[in-house]
Structures are given as C-alpha cells and as structure tokens.
C-alpha cells in the first residue's frame, strides 16, 4: 500500500511541474525591454522578494588614481612595462583627455596608453627595426623615428599613422643625432664632418631649410619649445675638457656665460640647468635671462625638466656626485636610485621617494612635464620603462608660495 501512495504522489508532482512548464511556455508574456533583446530568461520576479543587498562586484584594479576619496591618492605609477624609445603626451581634441603614445625599442611599434583607464593599446603595427628614439607631433598623427644599430646617429624617418595602424615611412636624412616635432615642423640635427646642421622641415609642404649650424661635430643639441628657439648646443661633456654653452635663436648664435670642464646643460622651460666640474666636485647651476644661480646640491642636468618657475629633477640624495660622476653615468659604470625633487630658489625639495613608494629603483631619464603641467613623465634607464608622477599638488603648493 505504501508503495502505491508513493507512486500516486510522484505522479501528481510531475503533473504539477508539467503544468507550470506549459504555462510558462504558452501563456507567460515575453519581456519587451529593448535594451536587453538577448535576454531569453524569464522574469521570475525575484525582485519582489526584497531589495538585493549584495554589493556589486566592480573591478577597481585599474592602477589609476582613485579620485573617489575612499583611498589614498596614487601619485606615482609605472605606465608600461615596455622598453620605450620615445613617448609623448598627446591631446587629440579639447574634449578628450590626453593620452600617452610610446614607441617600443627595437621594433618601433606604437602604443597608446589611456591615462584614465590604464589600458595600453597598440596603434602602430609597422615594424621599424633598430628604433632608437621616437618623437611625436602634438596630435599624435605624425611621428619621427631614428634607427641605429649601435645607438648613435642614425637614419631619420617620418611616419604618419593611419587608422588601421600602418605607417608609410619617408626617409628624411642620415646621421641624425636628435629630432623633435613642434607646431607642424620637424626639427632635426644632422652630423657632418665639420659640425651639425639643425634643419627645419615643414611637414605640410615638405620643404626644408637649415636653421643654424653648430660649428663642431661632437655637440649635444637641446631643442627649445618653439621652432625659432632658443635652442642650446654645447660640446659633449668630459671632465677633462672644457665646454661652452651656445644659445641659438633663429640663425643667431649667442655665447652664454656658461663654460667649464665637464660642462653639461639642459633646457628646462626658459631656463638652463647645468653642471660643471669644480675641482674634484660637481657644481650645478640654474641660468635664466642673464642670471646664474648655483644650486645647493649638484644634479645631473639630463635628469631635469621644467616649465616657468617649476624645475623638477631626478636626484639621488644618498650618492655624492663628484667631478667624475657625469662621465661615469654616461659610461654606464655609475647608476643612481633617484627620487623626484623640485628645485626652488636654488634649493632641492624632495617630492616623492620613488623606491619607498613603488619598491623599484629608478635611474631617472627623459623627464617631461605634460600640457596641463600636472603630470610628470620620465623613463627608468634601467629597463627603459615609462613612469608617471602627479605633480598637481606640488604645482599648487609652489604657486601659493
């Protein structure tokens, strides 16, 4: 008897379930929400049971600064793990935030880094072997690349990025030491037997003219912020030999009152930050207009950049720089563990301890300040990766002084 009850009960349950299934199939209304046309699941109205109190799972791990105020603001970030030969902050339009373009060493592939989302997207697929340095136009559509097998002067080529990511490359010149793109003009320095020609190429017309000639061959040319200058040129540095800084505006050369042994110089905004040997020590200076101010501590000028009233440098406060330090750093026998420092009125003020903040030792090179002046970009010489530091609070503090 007991077995019959069980069979009957089971059959009833099955019939009820079949009834529910038939109802759902034939009588239940389909959802009309056009926003979810692919939703093939029935609305079982679980919401009616009460509000869902589970927290939504959101991946906040973008590596970007958290602006919600819930967490400490992140002010230092490594932007890429790629070996970078050139980079630029690019503003595509006034309505979109700036992005950073980078060129990858050896292959010349171009990537776009979205600073808000932290994503890295390859936008240049053309392979450029032996890419040594790369320069971008303000809008990121045009780039120049120097290729060189051994890292010295090389062939300069000009490329325009297509929407598909390919780039037709035009050979511009050989024996090029450095270049930049300013306001639709490509500037490059070309080495020849008796010196260096700095050539101006109008990108729209393709026309070229020599802007000025540096009358010696082993020169470092540092481009200013406008085509006409001022630009700076000086003989390559050696602790054993005297150097002199020349400023070029248009075609006119002016000898600055900066000269000394082991001399180096770098443009930082309108000023020149440099250093020279002083006996067995290294002395650094800041030169603007016609005034020179010696810095309280020596720095390697190639580690500095600046805009009006703001000079920032990579500086290793735990290493004493001597007259030999610049040569040794160029030679690769010295390595620094830099932090970011602000130069103000000849004094150095530490902005961030990079190693404490990131756990990484950075030998800082190629610094640049972004268009909004809130962003500092720099490379780590150790692995050529690109980093970012948020300068906004420091700029604000400086302007309030």
């Amino acid at each position, binding site marked *: 008897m007991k077995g019959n009850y069980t069979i009957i009960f089971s059959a009833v349950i099955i019939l009820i379930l079949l009834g529910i299934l038939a109802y759902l199939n034939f009588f239940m209304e389909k959802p009309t929400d056009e926003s979810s046309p692919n939703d093939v699941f029935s609305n079982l109205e679980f919401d009616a049971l009460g509000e869902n109190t589970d927290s939504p799972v959101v991946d906040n791990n973008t590596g970007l600064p958290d602006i919600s105020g819930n967490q400490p603001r992140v002010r230092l970030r490594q932007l890429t793990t790629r070996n970078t030969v050139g980079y630029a902050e690019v503003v595509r339009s006034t309505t979109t935030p700036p992005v950073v373009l980078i060129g990858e060493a*050896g292959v010349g592939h171009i990537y776009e880094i979205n600073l808000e989302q932290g994503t890295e997207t390859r936008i240049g697929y053309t392979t450029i072997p032996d890419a040594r340095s790369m320069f971008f136009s303000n809008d990121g559509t045009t780039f120049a690349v120097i290729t060189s097998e*051994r890292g*010295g002067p090389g062939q300069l080529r000009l490329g325009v990025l297509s929407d598909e990511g390919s780039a037709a490359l035009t050979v511009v010149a050989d024996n090029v030491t450095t270049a930049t793109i300013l306001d639709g003009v490509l500037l490059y320095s070309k080495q020849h037997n008796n010196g260096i020609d700095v050539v101006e190429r109008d990108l729209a017309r393709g026309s070229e003219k020599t802007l000025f000639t540096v009358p010696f061959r082993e020169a470092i040319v540092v481009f200013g912020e406008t085509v006409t200058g001022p630009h700076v040129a000086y003989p390559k540095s050696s602790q054993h*030999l005297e150097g002199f800084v020349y400023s070029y505006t248009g075609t006119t050369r002016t000898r600055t009152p900066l000269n000394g042994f082991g001399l180096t110089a770098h443009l930082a905004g309108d000023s020149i930050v440099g250093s020279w040997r002083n006996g067995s020590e290294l002395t650094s200076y800041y030169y603007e207009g016609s*005034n020179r101010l010696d810095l309280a501590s020596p720095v390697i000028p190639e580690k500095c950049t600046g805009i009006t009233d703001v000079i920032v440098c990579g500086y290793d406060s735990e290493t004493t720089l001597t007259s030999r330090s*610049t040569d040794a750093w160029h030679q*690769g026998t010295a390595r620094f563990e830099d932090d970011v420092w602000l130069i103000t009125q000849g004094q150095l003020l530490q902005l961030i301890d990079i190693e404490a903040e990131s756990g990484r030792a950075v030998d800082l090179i190629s610094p640049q300040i972004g268009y909004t002046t809130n962003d500092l970009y720099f490379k780590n010489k150790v692995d050529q990766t690109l980093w970012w530091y948020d300068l906004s609070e420091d700029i604000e503090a400086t302007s309030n002084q």
Partner: protein
Amino acid sequence: MHSWFSLPVLLAAILFVIPQSSGAQFSNISGGQGFAQNESIIVTPEFPEPGGTVTVRFESYGTNISGSTIIWKLDGVTIGDATNRREATFTAGALGKQHLLEIVVQPSGGVERVVRAQIIPTYIDIVIEPQTHVPDFYQGRAVPSVGSLVNATALIETGRPVGSDLLYTWRLNQKALELGPIRGNNRVTFDATRDRNMTLSLVVSLPSGEVLGRRSILVPVVTPELQFYETNALYGINTYAITDSFTMIGNNASLLAVPYHLDSRIYNNPALHEWNISGERFSNNTNPYSVTLGKTKPSGRDSIEFEVRDTTQLLQGARGTIQINY
C-alpha cells in the same frame, strides 16, 4: 647673488701702446701729460671673458713712485678703494664693451703722469674634438690618447663686427702648427704628444695685425680604458657597463668590449685583439670586440679577458677582465 652678472664693472686692457714681449703687458706712450717710458700695466688675463675677474698690476721700473698718489680710474670714474695700490682686481663688463683704465700718478711736487690701458672683454673658445673611440651611445666626449689625432676649433666672439677673414696662429707646446698663421680657417689638427698635458695656444688677429684675442689651454692625454657591455639582438646594447661580474641567466649571452679613448685608427684596424676565456685565447675576426658565450656548466664562474693593442705604439691599447657567473 651672482657675481658675474650683477657686478658688471669694468675693464679691459690694451694700452694705446706697444705690447711688449708678454702679451699682457702694456706701457703708455701717449699719456698727454707727463709719463715715464718704463711704467706699464699688466692685465691678467689679457683678454678677459665678459664678467670674468681681471687683475691689473701697475709696474714701474726705475721710477721712484714712493710718496706719489696713485689714482685708478675706470671709464673716467675713480675707483676709491684702489687708491695708492699697485694692484687691483675688477670684474669685466659685457661682451665687446671697451673699458678705459687710467692710472694717474701724482708725485709730490712733480709732474702728473697718466698710464692708460684699454680692456675689451672677448670670448675665445677652443673646442677639442679628439679622434679617439667612444661608443655611439656615449653622450660624453672622447679624450686624446698618445699619438691620436686631435681637432681643435676656435670660436671667437668680440661683440663687434670683425668679419671672417681672421688670422689664426696656433702653437702646440710652443711649436707653431701649420707652419704659421692660417687665414680664415679656425680649425687645426695635430697629433697628441706623450705629455700628460699639452699646451695649445691661439692668437686671433685681423689681417691688419690687430690682435683680437689670445688663449692658452691644457689638453690632457689619457690612457685608453676598457668596459664590457651586454648586447641584445632586439634592444641593442645595455648601456650599463659590466663593472665586475656578469651573471648569465639564459644559455648564452653576447658581450661587447668597448675601448674608450683608443685612437680611432687603431680601433678600426687593431694589430692585436684577443679574447681569453678561462685560459682559452681566441680572436673574433668578424667583429673583434664582440663575443657570444654559451653556458658551459650548470654553475660556477669563468674569467673573461679582452685586450686590444697597437704593436708599434704600445700605449695605444686597453685590457680588461670580468667574471661570468653561471
């Protein structure tokens, strides 16, 4: 603040006079009032840089000036704290400014004499470009080594139009280069000597003979040195030198030996180039400075040595050793 900008004062020298054997010495022959032939002004440096410090000494031979009042005037203005001194120090003014220095000697009961000098701040730069090897990635300058070629380029700025038709007279260790003055050519090439420092002198003058400036510099001669670097087929040279030891991570590694300041002619065609890896010597005739190493044992270390040398000039060479860890 900054002395050489904010203290632009005076000077420059050159008497309307006959420079004597030392180029920095001037004696007045056109004093107007009384003067003594054996009084002179010595300006050091003779052609100061703009903003540079100038030391001026008043020399008087055979004339008794004790008891005389000595008044110094620069561009007509009396320099108070130099009164009755025989030596004074000034800061030169801007490029090309012609300063007139006057020393007025007033003997007690005698005739006043004036000695004059004109000082024109001038830049005379000599850029040294040795033809010795440094790697392409090196942002520094090569330095001369024994026997290497050295190029020197003179750049002169006087602050006034002087044209390009100038005479350049170069001397190396007191010996004239190019057999005398070169007209219109501001470059010279010479061989580095065996001295630790060479003295290179230059006089720049107008075709008329007027001297625009002089400069002497010491040019050092160094011993070449060797550094090792790892190279990568994709990224090229790792610009950090291997200063002591190198740890091989993979199964092989490529190393480059880079001699610094070796005569470029010897670098390009070395008489002797030899690698020595744990006692085994060999040469790479494809690229003498490069070697590719394979991992020969799971762990341990080897010694790697490289030497490059000229067989006729033995000081033209470099040798280096590093350890490699497996």
